[in-house]
């Protein structure tokens, strides 16, 4: 084990960035308002300042070499293909659901996640995902909710 483990500096920087985004957004809002002492920008500014300060504190902690987390000590590292397969499965619905409809989207996402967990039965998984999506579509429309067009490609 190396004396100084590589620290995930980017986490601290990301927190500071999130704070900066809040501060940028608050620049167009009133901090002290016409009404009472504080306006719509007060909370946004306060949150932005808070995030920047916390991000800096986190960086300081890391620089002092504070063990980042006990969980990280046990962390064996990540399985990259599985990670990306699930991320794609999570992103897919936003991109394709309006074009291909719920059942096909469900089939694709289901298959990707099960592949990430090591299942090789692609066709079975496609079928299970499709059935889940179809069943949910009919259940929801029975409950009076719309889950988009069923199969837009077939014009259904």
């Amino acid at each position, binding site marked *: 084990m190396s004396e100084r483990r590589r620290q995930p500096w980017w*986490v601290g920087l990301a*927190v500071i960035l*999130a704070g900066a985004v*809040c501060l940028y957004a*608050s620049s167009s*809002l009133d901090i002290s*308002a016409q*009404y*009472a*002492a*504080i*306006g*719509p920008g007060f*909370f*946004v500014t306060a*949150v932005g300042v*808070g*995030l920047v300060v*916390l*991000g800096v504190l986190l960086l300081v*902690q890391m620089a002092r070499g504070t063990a980042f*987390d*006990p*969980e*990280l000590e046990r*962390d064996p590292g*990540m399985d*990259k293909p599985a*990670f990306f397969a*699930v991320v794609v*499965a*999570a*992103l897919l*619905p*936003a*991109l394709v*659901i*309006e074009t291909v409809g*719920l059942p096909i*989207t*469900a089939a694709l*996402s*289901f*298959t990707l*996640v*099960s592949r*990430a*967990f*090591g299942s090789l039965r692609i066709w079975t*998984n496609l079928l*299970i*995902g499709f059935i*889940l*999506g179809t069943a*949910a579509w009919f259940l*929801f429309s029975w*409950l009076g*909710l*719309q*889950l988009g067009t069923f199969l837009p490609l077939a014009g259904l």
Partner: protein
Amino acid sequence: MDTLSLLLHGFQVALQPVNLMWALVGSLLGTAIGVLPGIGPALTIALLLPVTVSVGPVSAFIMFAGILYGAMYGGSTTAILINTPGEAGSMMTALEGNRMARAGRGAAALATAAIGSFVAGTLATMALTFAAPAVAELAFILTPADYFALTVMAFTSVSVVMGSSRVRGFISLFLGLALGVVGIDAMTGQARMTFSIPDLLDGIELTVVLVSVFAVGEIIYVASRNRYYQEEITPIRGKAFMTADEWRRSWKPWLRGAVIGFPMGAIPGGGSELPTMLSYTLEKHLSRHKDEFGKGAIEGVAGPEAANNAAAAGVLVPLLTLGLPTSATAAILLVAFQNYGLQPGPFLFTSNPELVWGLIASLYVGNCMLLVLNLPLVGLWVRLLYIPKPQLYAGILVFAMIGIWGVSGSTFDLALMAGLGLVSYAMRVYGIPIAPMLIGLILVPLAETQLRTALAAGEGRFQVLFESPIALAFYIVAVLFLIVPWIMARLQSAAESRPSTG
């Protein structure tokens, strides 16, 4: 009307056949999701929120209550049989319970967990019955300044208690606050943090955040670490029931667990982790079989399981009386109330007695159902553990997507799901707790409205925030939450360094 007659009226509501059916559905569903690793009660209720469109509030909350309690029962089964605590509250159960299962006393461990959950759940529900109306009365005297102080206390305690470091707890809280201010400001009508995206004008739905962090984030995390973990299911062995000696060793921990769990669940930030750990430590201290701890002591299952269930009931006190959620599950229940246009708080007891008392009565009913469902049928539930992991997690992701698509029908929210899923994956990897973010997100409108109302009433003087003794007390507790762990750490390190230097 006094509490008892109100409760009786609640039973009339809860025992209607249709509501009994919903309680059964909730209990079954709750136990199932409790048993399945990877999904908790908060996520399940979030995914079921669409039913609020077509089911009446009384029935829906009776079902949600069944899920809340059922998940506690089911969680212990998983903890005992595969040593994977599904949630933080089952950690201690896994410690002793799994050892018992391996030593061939699995049946006794499951029985003491189920009966302990029943005893503590019933006692805590009784405490809720009598405490809630009293707290609701007190809540009438809270001014906006007091309410703001209360939210500050909730924010601080949740951030400090959940997770391993205060900085990371607060990072989570502030991320939640940032997400919570997105949308049109209720007081001035100005769009905040929307970056000209029309989908953001209505704000970010807690449902979307909750599903993203608990389903998507969790699946990404488990998938990326899956290769390295092997789970083995210990088959249930041992006599179907507890021996006389095991009863004798269990009943006191059950009662003590209930006494610890209920108040700690009611305190903001108490959660389920702390009371179970406290109960475990206490039982270890009091036990005449100290040597058995770590090797399968029945007290170590009985106490924490009881504390866990009592805490789940305790969480309902601040939620119902003050509208203050103190756990992720409570936060999603608050959203369910809001979906019906109801605001939990002191007025709910007078405006919707049928709902409040029907809900409380259904907790008694659900607890009895769960005992029946769990003691003899535990073998059936165990089968759920044999669902292959790939299809289980794939199914969870598909339901998460359907849940969001069903609530909002917007592809923007689906994209948000993927984005927030990635953020929460990073939070898991780097030990940033999730709960403070959810509490921040759900409470920021309340905090902001009360602060601005208080300041408007005080004509803009900031001193008005500190003038009431109640508010001052809340601030003092908040400061204590901040500094006590720091002082304790200092004292501890001082005590440790003395022998080495001297």
